[in-house]
């Protein structure tokens, strides 16, 4: 009866440790909880392993400086592995522990939690995830993209192409190379509208998941269509493959602009390094590089603890996005505590607090966002950074593009 005995032992160990786990959860006075979902082991871990440390480090920095209006912040991170059921479990766990606000991770996860967050009246933030229609604060009161959505990114890419092509797009040809999933297809409606408005010819090239084989599409682009500008919107390994393929076929990378998920140092490194990707343009919704005061403060915080600076800072595109993401939460919390005149805020205060976030810049790292009860996107601000001389160089300052077109679509989506 070996089986029976070992099974009982295993069960006893499991039960014992679960009891331990319950006891370890304790709450303090003057402390608020942020829930943070992440993906460190799933298909989008290449983003998560840099963005979530950025989020955590910024909160640690705020705590080391005394917290927000006397409140310390505790972050509870749960890895949802980019799967939907664990995302629901994570949300319920955060709720049980008394979270103030929840950082969501992943597009299907954001979709699956939309109803639940509204029912529980808890704010969920989803920078770079979720639908573009989520920017409509009247329709989704508890959903906050708080970063340029794919619609705004598509519009910004066209605006950048227009500037590069001499402020006139009529008669020009623009290609759109995209990952064939809902997120990849999302900007197409905006691009089609702008094609009519600006008079350029648009052709789309779909890449089936997982997007590591782009030969045919790139050949089609460089050999047949020969666009004047190319907008790419790819995920995972696909951006680096696209850089390699386009370079190999002789298409000038200075005429390529990538949306935000094909825009990190890791993508460039995987494509063969910064020398290969010279001229590659990227859209960013947070500043790039280590040349910001907040990065210095984080490095110093680690030094004061006798530790080296976190290695994630190297991939500053994602790390900085994590910082800006966390900073938005902190700003919302500050507003919420002020509204309660120093008392403990509620999740409803956090919603109002988030809707008042404006004019914080984090030394230029964050866009000049203006979140309002109608606009949960904060204006759709974008910077373009270009690969030049071994690093990303800022090409444009924060700008918005074609807001009227985006607003029309938001109204239409209702």
């Amino acid at each position, binding site marked *: 009866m070996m089986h029976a005995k070992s099974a009982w032992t295993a069960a006893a160990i499991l039960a014992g440790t679960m009891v331990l786990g319950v006891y*370890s959860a304790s709450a303090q006075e003057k402390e608020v909880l942020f829930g943070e979902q*992440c993906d460190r082991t799933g298909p989008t871990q290449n983003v998560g392993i840099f963005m979530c*440390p950025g989020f955590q480090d910024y909160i640690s920095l705020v705590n080391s400086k005394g917290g927000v209006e006397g409140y310390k912040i505790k972050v509870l991170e749960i*890895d949802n592995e980019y799967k939907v059921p*664990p995302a*629901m479990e994570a949300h319920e766990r955060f709720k049980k522990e008394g979270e103030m606000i929840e950082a969501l991770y992943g597009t299907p996860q954001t979709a699956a939690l939309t*109803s639940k967050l509204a029912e529980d009246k808890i704010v969920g933030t989803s920078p770079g995830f979720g639908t573009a229609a989520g920017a409509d604060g009247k329709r989704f009161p508890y959903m906050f993209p708080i970063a340029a959505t794919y619609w705004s990114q598509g519009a910004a890419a066209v605006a950048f192409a227009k500037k590069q092509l001499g402020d006139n797009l009529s008669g020009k040809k623009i290609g759109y190379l995209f990952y064939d999933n809902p997120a990849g297809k999302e900007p197409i409606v905006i691009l089609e509208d702008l094609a009519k408005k600006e008079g350029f010819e648009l052709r789309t090239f779909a890449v089936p998941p997982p997007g590591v084989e782009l030969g045919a599409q790139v050949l089609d682009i460089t050999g047949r269509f020969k666009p004047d500008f190319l907008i790419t919107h790819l995920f995972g390994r696909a951006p680096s493959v696209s850089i390699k393929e386009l370079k190999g076929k002789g298409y000038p990378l200075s005429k390529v602009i990538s949306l935000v998920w094909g825009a990190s140092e890791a993508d460039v490194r995987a494509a063969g390094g910064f020398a290969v990707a010279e001229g590659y343009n990227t859209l960013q919704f947070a500043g790039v590089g280590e040349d910001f005061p907040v990065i210095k403060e984080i490095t110093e915080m680690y030094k004061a603890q006798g530790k080296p600076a*976190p290695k994630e800072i190297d991939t500053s595109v994602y790390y900085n996005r994590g910082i800006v993401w966390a900073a938005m939460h902190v700003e919302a919390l500050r507003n919420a505590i002020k509204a309660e005149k120093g008392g403990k805020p509620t999740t409803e205060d956090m919603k109002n607090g988030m809707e008042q976030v404006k004019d914080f810049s984090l030394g230029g790292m964050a866009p000049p966002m203006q979140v309002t009860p109608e606009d949960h996107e904060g204006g759709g601000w974008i910077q373009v950074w270009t690969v030049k001389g071994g690093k990303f160089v800022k090409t444009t300052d924060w700008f918005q593009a074609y807001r009227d077109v985006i607003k029309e679509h938001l109204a239409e989506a209702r």
Partner: protein
Amino acid sequence: MFHRETGVFKTSYAADMALYPLPIARGTVIALLVLFVVIVPAVFGEYYLSIINLVLISIVGALGLNILVGYTGQISIGHGAFMSVGAYTAANLAVRAGLPFWITLPAGGLMAALVGAVVGIPSLRIKGLYLAIATLAGQLIIEWIINHVPWISGGTQASIQVPRPSLFGHEMKTQGELYFFLLFFALIAIVAALNLVRSRIGRAFVAIRDQDIAAEIIGIDIFRYKLIAFAISSFYAGVCGVLYTYYFGIANYEQFQLGVSIEYLAMIIIGGLGSVLGSILGAAFVSLLPLAIRTVMESVGGLFFAANEMATVVSSMRLVIFGALIIVFLVMEPEGLNRLWRNIRNYFRVWPFSY
């Protein structure tokens, strides 16, 4: 359960095939019902109910897959897609036609059954790995269609928001209310599966699994029963998809991709192929083990790792331990948790006089 069968003598085939093998089993079933209908919702809070809810949904899906893989011996790695068929059928009916869940739920199941039967047609000619690839093709084709046909998917985002299920005008939206909603359908699924496998159809499935040529010779119409197996199994998968849709309030095909099909296969293999209880145990095991590991890691991990490393350590170690434990359980008992449970039961049946 730990029943003593002393003094119970079966004198007819009907008695041998009865749903309750022993008179005391009736009492056990009633006790279990009381546990899950009264005690569980009263004792557990929202968080634990949310976990149980996810397990209940997976039980329905795992039961369906076990009917096909465990009982009929046909493999499918397209069950994630069948779930999405159910999900989108129900979502479209609920949103466009405003139908209530007690119509959309069977409709979603039936549509999935239809699609499943079509995808199952190759099973008449091919077996094993070849059939696995054929059903994989089904998965990819269905995913592609949903992604590219806005009439089904409801637009570029391929997600349709669905109102909460309502009964007599009351919307079920808290985890507690959804628990009863899901428990009801999980119970029906379990009882239906138990009855199916001891019926003529279930016996035919087992005959096909054990030796399809012999089954044909003794008069089982293989063509018909293989398609029935695919249809019933996909019906379960479709219902599972509809339950997910109502639970999350949205139909989104990205949550039913290939990985989900594999995960459900893992559930039934760990739980035990060809067993209803195995499907239930497997679904619970695969859903709960990662949570248990995380809880353990969170409570003891702080002793070994710095705070800022914890997040990486917890999520990576969780995968490693999860994989290792699955191997351990399978090596310990290749026939799954169901067999493990039977071993425990057999041990206690004669305890303390085990000679």
